[in-house]
């Protein structure tokens, strides 16, 4: 569905992302892993065209720059991590904005289909009961679910997540990825997620790309990428041994 071909991002004469290629196929949960500064978030920004980049990003074999903004929003939805909120919008209003790219009426009147999609998204993310609350009164976990519901309401084919669970409790991390896992099962859907937590990547991903120093150190099926040797090389820590040690403590 989504092809990234030789993507490079250069900032201040430094190559942050160096010639990265991969392909996202239907039902994939494709994890982008790697240590801090490996270029994960910049790769994500390059794909979305927020930073100047070389190389191509194709959706259904058409360069994504060829799509109109609204058209692209109906294909690809994005969940970002950084967010400062100032105004007391309701949960419902924020989620309903996800319908923006589908609306044709002036002033954004929601039609029945829009409302149905919004209700569905609220239900899927467990927000129905708090849909009239101000987003300023929500916890970090609830807020992240609100924006996840917004992307679901957007009804894209591909979901791109930039560290969707970084500041969340374990409980919410599991909840959010469980929801995503359900979502991707439908036809013509795929997920690309930048994650920090290797456990999450392992449990929920089916493929991965391991970034190191701007390059793709390894890519492919998740169990071939997140191997003891690869992780040792990239993180300079014997991750597998460390995890086993932790597991031992829990027994």
């Amino acid at each position: 569905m989504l092809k990234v071909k030789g993507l490079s991002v250069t900032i201040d004469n430094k190559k942050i992302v160096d010639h990265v290629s991969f392909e996202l196929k239907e039902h994939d949960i494709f994890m982008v892993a790697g240590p801090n500064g490996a270029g994960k978030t910049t790769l994500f920004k390059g794909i979305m065209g927020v930073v100047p980049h070389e190389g191509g990003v194709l959706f259904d074999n058409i360069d994504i720059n060829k799509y109109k903004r609204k058209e692209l929003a109906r294909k690809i939805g994005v969940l970002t991590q950084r967010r400062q909120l100032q105004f007391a919008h309701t949960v419902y209003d924020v989620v309903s904005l996800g319908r923006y790219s589908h609306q044709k009426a002036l002033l954004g009147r929601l039609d029945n289909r829009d409302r149905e999609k919004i209700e569905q998204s609220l239900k899927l993310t467990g927000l129905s009961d708090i849909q009239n609350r101000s987003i300023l009164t929500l916890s970090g976990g609830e807020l992240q679910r609100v924006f996840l519901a917004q992307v679901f309401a957007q009804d894209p084919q591909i979901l791109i997540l930039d560290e969707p669970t970084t500041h969340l409790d374990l409980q919410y991390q599991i909840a959010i990825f469980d929801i995503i896992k359900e979502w991707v099962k439908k036809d013509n859907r795929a997920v690309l997620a930048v994650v920090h937590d290797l456990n999450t990547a392992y449990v929920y991903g089916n493929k991965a790309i391991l970034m190191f120093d701007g390059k793709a150190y390894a890519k492919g099926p998740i169990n071939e990428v997140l191997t003891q040797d690869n992780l040792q090389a990239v993180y300079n820590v014997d991750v597998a041994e460390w995890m086993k040690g932790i597991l031992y403590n829990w027994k």
Partner: protein
Amino acid sequence: MRNHNLENYNFSGDAGVKSPSFLVLLFSVLLFFVVLFFSISAGSIGFHPVQTFKIIVNSLFGTGDISNIPENNITIIMNIRLPRAILAAMVGAALSLSGAVMQGLLKNPLADGSTLGITSGGTLGAILAIALNTNIPFIPGIGIVVMSIIFSFLSLVLILFLSYKIDYHLSTQTIILMGIIFTMLINSINSLIVALSGEGLKQVIFWTMGSFSGRGWSHVCLMLPLFIIATVILLALSRELDAFSLGEEQARYIGVSTKRVKLLILIMVSVLVGASVAVSGTIGFVGLVIPHITRFITGPGHKKLLPFSVLSGASFLMAADLLSRTIISPAELPIGVVTSLIGALIFIYIFYKKSRKGF
């Protein structure tokens, strides 16, 4: 925007999220007309509101008998007070709307023509137009308006550009600080021009404090088309502004053509602020205070916030103008003094509250 059924609406409500009902709209419209009639009736010569009403109806439709009212009084109502009130309403609406729009666009509850320094820029344009005697054939007075709009736009772009350079995320403090520095710089340039140009520009002093004194139908006609165009366009962009108020990057991802929409919004804001400055001088804080109060009632959704800001801004500035010309009658207080006095106090209050909860 809240189109779901009333059944599942939670009436217990949270702070800042309230349902503006039909009644609030009715009240706002009513308030507008009450203030309009008061401001036309009151003054150095007082009229009974009924008498005012008769005069206006007669002048507009030719009905009713006003033969017992002196010609002089009809002139006062129709050619002095009515255009002045309408102009005040229009400027109030324009400033309030532009403030609400800037706050949403920049995700910054303290943004406004005066805090960002746009009004100062517009004033510089107006002063230059007078000093250089800029004129465009066929439409007298338009030179000042055009220069004021252009300079408003330039200052807006410059301030935003510099703020982006300093702080990519455009935090509240950065923009406000830039606005203050820019305002001081422009004001000193303005003073310099006035000082260098001698007696001829002494009228400019009054620009810096704002006034509707001596404004008539010609000013109304000058501003009206600009006001209507900009207002219609901005009201139509309420959905996009909702998206911007949650973050520009996110707005882009949900499908907003952020660059194009932003440019359009900046131009329309400049038109509103520039035209206002050209006809009435620097009137501060309207765009800061009115949308903020309105947001308490309507919630932050722009579909409701913007039209209500237009209405309440209009009522507010008419009332302020009424105060400015009656409070030390027969002398007149510059209206900028009235609005800044009220506005600055509320500004402090907002700033104080901000540290405890959001908007």
